[in-house]
């Protein structure tokens, strides 16, 4: 039996609490649905990106023609319609001008008509590549025309053939993967391959076969069938999924962070729901006691309040869904450029029903405890003499346990990684536990203090008033603020190491192999912005006297110690470096012993620590150095970095070359290259403009998206502040009345309440800051594998801001009370 009038009365009687409750539910819905839709769009576009980054589903590479067994297998697959195939040959060649003197090293790509299966080769004419690249023609990069002073329509000698330049290539889908190139791109039609006479015995050519599978589900089977046809190591079979595009790590980090902030928003909304409900039920305590005195069973009461919460939850869900739909109009502009235009961003039904289900679960979960507590309301509460119920009864544990399980499963579903999920849960439990302990500790300290000001003394008394909720408010606030602070700090760090790593002035042109005596002349050419790094070649022959076997080392999947290293020397840290172990770059107290500073990346290749010894072979001379420090990089941009740094005097005598990094305007690059070739023919220029620009753009977009989703959790945090202050409203009315009856002026009452809120805000803020610094350090270092900066000024601003917010909301709730005449309240009291 449900009494509708009762439900309606409960809802209209506490409009503000209901509004906060609805907003909390709506917020969690919006976050879940938007994040869900976004995630699906991003994942599908990521896979598409990966396909177009490799221009195919399966890529077979080899330095020589494929073994016949592999060729046979590909032919069979094509014959059965399981795949389409297109080949291309990639190699360097020196092309010659037909009229006049001039030649240039170019990166040739001889392609069959099917290339590319995914993505698009963008030409200046706007036409498809296959239409332009007919036998006898060339499609080239603008740089080639600039450097050889040619026009489209001019001829060029490539190998034995003379071909005509037809068009200019602006973008190539798989270029970012093979971005390191010593010369401009030249496309040649496969039909001209024989005529070139460049491929054959004595050539160094990358033979690539691209495959597009008819059914994506066959991808891995076909790839492994192809790999099984040969045991030659020179044949490499990869799929677009496992070829590991480097953009993927950014996206992985971003998705991880977004999921994290989604779950946190959910949690914060949950806290909001719970504390609103507590406040609401607190005010209804007497009603409930009366109901009980009249013989109502706990089940009846709980049932009705459950109905109230479900109705509110349903309204919140509706509001949330509407909000999500409205938001969709805004999302595409936010994500434009990041997601390919052909991916339409739309609300996925999957995300909607998942969101609704999870929303319902959150409502049920977070209302369970307040509702269950209704059982403990005794009829004698009518007289206002109820004993505070024990905080941790068995039922509380069960509900808390269920809650933990729910969030664990959420985390597991979202993060898809058991270990991270468990860490996450432990961190959450730790967060709440630490908040509780710190809050209890601070309250105990405050209780003992007796400040001089009466208002402050009263404020302190207020914190410890009977049935006070101070502890639970501080725990809720500090846990919630802790989460928000952590998100803000992590976002700032993501920003610093990804986005600001690509500042507008970042170097885009790199010059290698500069001889020491050329530095001065080159510096005149490059201007003041260039940076120079001396490079001495050397190998690591032993670590702690244990020899390094290059063949063994090369078997490792990542970088390894088996290759030759670029060593450098200097006395100071680079702007984006930090010492993680050892204190200073080099030690003054180690006397004449040779020292070296090691980048932390090397520690992943081989175990070593400060004080260990590394033996190098530098220009024929064995040199053993002691590790004086371990450095880390704080940014991930295109700045040069060095695994091993020596003090200058140690390597000064060894022959070295100089590496330069400089920012050059795109239009000036070809001219600069010509000047360099004229004056310093041995120096090679590497142009990464395209890649730097693309990365800078992607990073900027990512930061907007991250900020957008973090703002949800900030709104949730504000709601929590509002709802927790609401929770104390009833007790405050009483106090305000008593103060006024005792002759206190309004300003005094205001001072007392402000001081109380100030204390609440400051204490919660400080606890939150402490926890969030630890939490974000762990998230950055362990979760995202990046450098952490504490941002002290911003942190203090956060504490100040939240304290102000608590005070402001407190005042907003209290001011209307002060305007009431005490007698109104007393009359209402006696009415009950």
């Amino acid at each position: 039996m449900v009494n509708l009038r009762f439900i309606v009365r409960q809802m209209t009687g506490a409009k503000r609490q209901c509004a906060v409750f609805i907003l909390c539910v709506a917020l969690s819905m919006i976050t879940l649905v938007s994040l869900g839709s976004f995630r699906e769009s991003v994942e599908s576009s990521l896979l598409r990106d990966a396909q177009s980054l490799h221009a195919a589903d399966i890529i077979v590479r080899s330095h020589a023609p494929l073994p016949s067994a592999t060729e046979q297998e590909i032919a069979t697959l094509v014959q059965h319609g399981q795949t389409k195939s297109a080949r291309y040959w990639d190699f360097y060649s020196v092309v010659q001008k037909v009229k006049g003197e001039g030649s240039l090293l170019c990166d040739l790509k001889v392609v069959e008509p099917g290339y590319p299966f995914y993505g698009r080769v963008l030409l200046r004419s706007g036409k498809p590549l296959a239409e332009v690249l007919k036998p006898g023609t060339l499609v080239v990069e603008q740089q080639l025309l600039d450097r050889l002073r040619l026009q489209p329509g001019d001829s060029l000698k490539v190998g034995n053939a003379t071909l005509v330049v037809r068009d200019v290539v602006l973008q190539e889908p798989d270029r970012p993967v093979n971005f390191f190139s010593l010369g401009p791109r030249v496309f040649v039609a496969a039909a001209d391959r024989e005529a070139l006479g460049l491929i054959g015995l004595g050539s160094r050519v990358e033979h690539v076969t691209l495959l597009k599978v008819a059914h994506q589900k066959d991808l891995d089977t076909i790839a492994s069938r192809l790999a099984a046809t040969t045991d030659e190591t020179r044949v490499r079979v990869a799929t677009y999924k496992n070829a590991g595009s480097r953009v993927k790590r950014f996206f992985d980090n971003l998705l991880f962070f977004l999921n994290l902030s989604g779950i946190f928003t959910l949690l914060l909304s949950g806290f909001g729901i719970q504390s609103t409900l507590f406040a609401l039920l607190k005010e209804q305590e007497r009603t409930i006691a009366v109901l009980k005195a009249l013989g109502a069973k706990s089940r009846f009461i709980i049932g009705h309040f459950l109905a109230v919460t479900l109705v509110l939850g349903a309204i919140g869900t509706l509001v949330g869904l509407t909000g999500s739909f409205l938001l969709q109009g805004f999302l595409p502009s936010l994500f434009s450029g990041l997601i390919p235009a052909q991916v339409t961003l739309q609300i996925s039904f999957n995300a909607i029903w998942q969101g609704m289900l999870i929303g319902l679960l959150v409502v049920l979960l977070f209302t369970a405890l307040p509702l269950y507590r209704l059982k403990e309301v005794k009829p004698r509460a009518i007289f206002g003499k109820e004993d505070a119920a024990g905080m941790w009864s068995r039922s509380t544990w069960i509900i808390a346990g269920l809650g933990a399980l729910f969030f664990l499963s959420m985390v597991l579903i979202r993060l898809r990684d058991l270990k991270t999920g468990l860490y996450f849960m432990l961190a959450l439990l730790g967060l709440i536990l630490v908040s509780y302990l710190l809050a209890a500790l601070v309250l105990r300290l405050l209780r003992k203090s007796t400040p001089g000001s009466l208002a402050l003394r009263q404020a302190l008394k207020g914190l410890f008033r009977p049935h006070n909720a101070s502890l639970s408010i501080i725990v809720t606030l500090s846990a919630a603020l802790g989460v928000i602070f952590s998100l803000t700090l992590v976002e700032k760090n993501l920003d610093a190491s990804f986005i600001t790593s690509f500042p507008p002035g970042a170097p885009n042109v790199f010059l290698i192999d500069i001889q020491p005596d050329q530095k001065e002349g080159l510096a005149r050419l490059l201007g003041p912005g260039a940076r120079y790094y001396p490079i001495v070649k050397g190998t690591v022959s032993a670590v702690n006297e244990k020899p390094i076997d290059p063949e063994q080392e090369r078997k490792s999947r990542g970088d390894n110690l088996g290759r030759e290293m670029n060593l450098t020397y200097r006395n100071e840290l680079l702007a984006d470096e930090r010492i993680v172990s050892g204190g200073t770059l080099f030690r003054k107290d180690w006397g004449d012993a040779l020292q070296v500073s090691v980048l932390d990346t090397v520690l992943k290749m081989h175990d070593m620590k400060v004080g260990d010894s590394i033996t190098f072979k530098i220009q024929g001379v064995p040199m053993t150095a002691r590790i004086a420090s371990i450095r880390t990089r704080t940014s991930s941009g295109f700045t040069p970095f060095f695994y091993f740094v020596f003090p200058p005097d140690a390597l000064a005598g060894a022959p070295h070359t100089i590496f330069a990094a400089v920012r050059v305007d795109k239009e000036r690059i070809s001219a600069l290259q010509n000047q360099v070739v004229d004056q310093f023919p041995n120096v090679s220029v590497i142009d990464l403009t395209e890649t730097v620009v693309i990365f800078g753009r992607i990073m900027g977009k990512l930061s907007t998206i991250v900020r957008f989703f973090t703002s949800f959790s900030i709104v949730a945090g504000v709601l929590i502040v509002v709802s927790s202050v609401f929770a104390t409203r009833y007790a405050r009315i009483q106090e305000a009345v008593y103060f006024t009856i005792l002759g206190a002026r309004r300003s005094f009452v205001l001072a007392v309440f402000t001081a109380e809120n100030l204390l609440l805000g400051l204490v919660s803020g400080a606890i939150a800051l402490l926890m969030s610094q630890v939490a974000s350090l762990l998230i950055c270092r362990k979760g995202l594998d990046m450098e952490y900066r504490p941002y002290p000024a911003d942190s203090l601003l956060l504490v100040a801001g939240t304290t102000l917010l608590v005070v402001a909301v407190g005042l907003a709730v209290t001011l209307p009370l002060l305007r009431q005449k005490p007698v109104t309240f007393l009359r209402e009291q006696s009415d009950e």
Partner: protein
Amino acid sequence: MRNLFTIFTLALCTVTGAGPALAAGAAKPASHGTIVAFGDSLTAGYGIRESEAYPAQLQRKLHQAGYQWTVINAGISGETSTGALARVDWVMKLKPDIVILETGANDGLRGQDPDLAYRNIDKIVSTLQSKGVVVVLAGMRMLRNLGPAYTGKFAAIYPRVAKERKVILIPFFLDKVAGKEGLNLSDGVHPTAKGYAIVTETVYPYVVKAIKQKGGA
């Protein structure tokens, strides 16, 4: 990002280079003299153990034949002829009687003007000769894919220097090895230990000629 940079450094490493190595210890035995193998990755033995690169194999072969000479590996991977020229003084510190000069391949791989390599090699040879060093010049050919105009000009550098400076010329350092599968690493450019056995055979008679010229036995 780090992956990206790994690619970058790796790529940089393959075009630039690496440290030289002593094939048989820096100490000069009391016997007959020192040969310095002065070159790039093809001398250093890129991707294989130092003991399998040609300088070490050559020393073993010389010892077997009764020539008690030391062969020092002074190869730096990725070095161009310009880098080699800048390193002549450093190489002279090893007090060589004979230098086997193998350089220029990286100039070619970067498409640099063959005239530059010619000038550099010419200068290295004349500097070494002026200090009384007998030079064995390793002839090199460029990869076919660079095009006939370029490879033709490139291959002409070595006979020209040899003729003008009257040095011993190994017509083609990678004879019978270049482009042969099984004799080269999977990159198709750098010889394996087996490949170096053939290189050693190729180099050996010219080194013996140099030893005789130097007056050793």
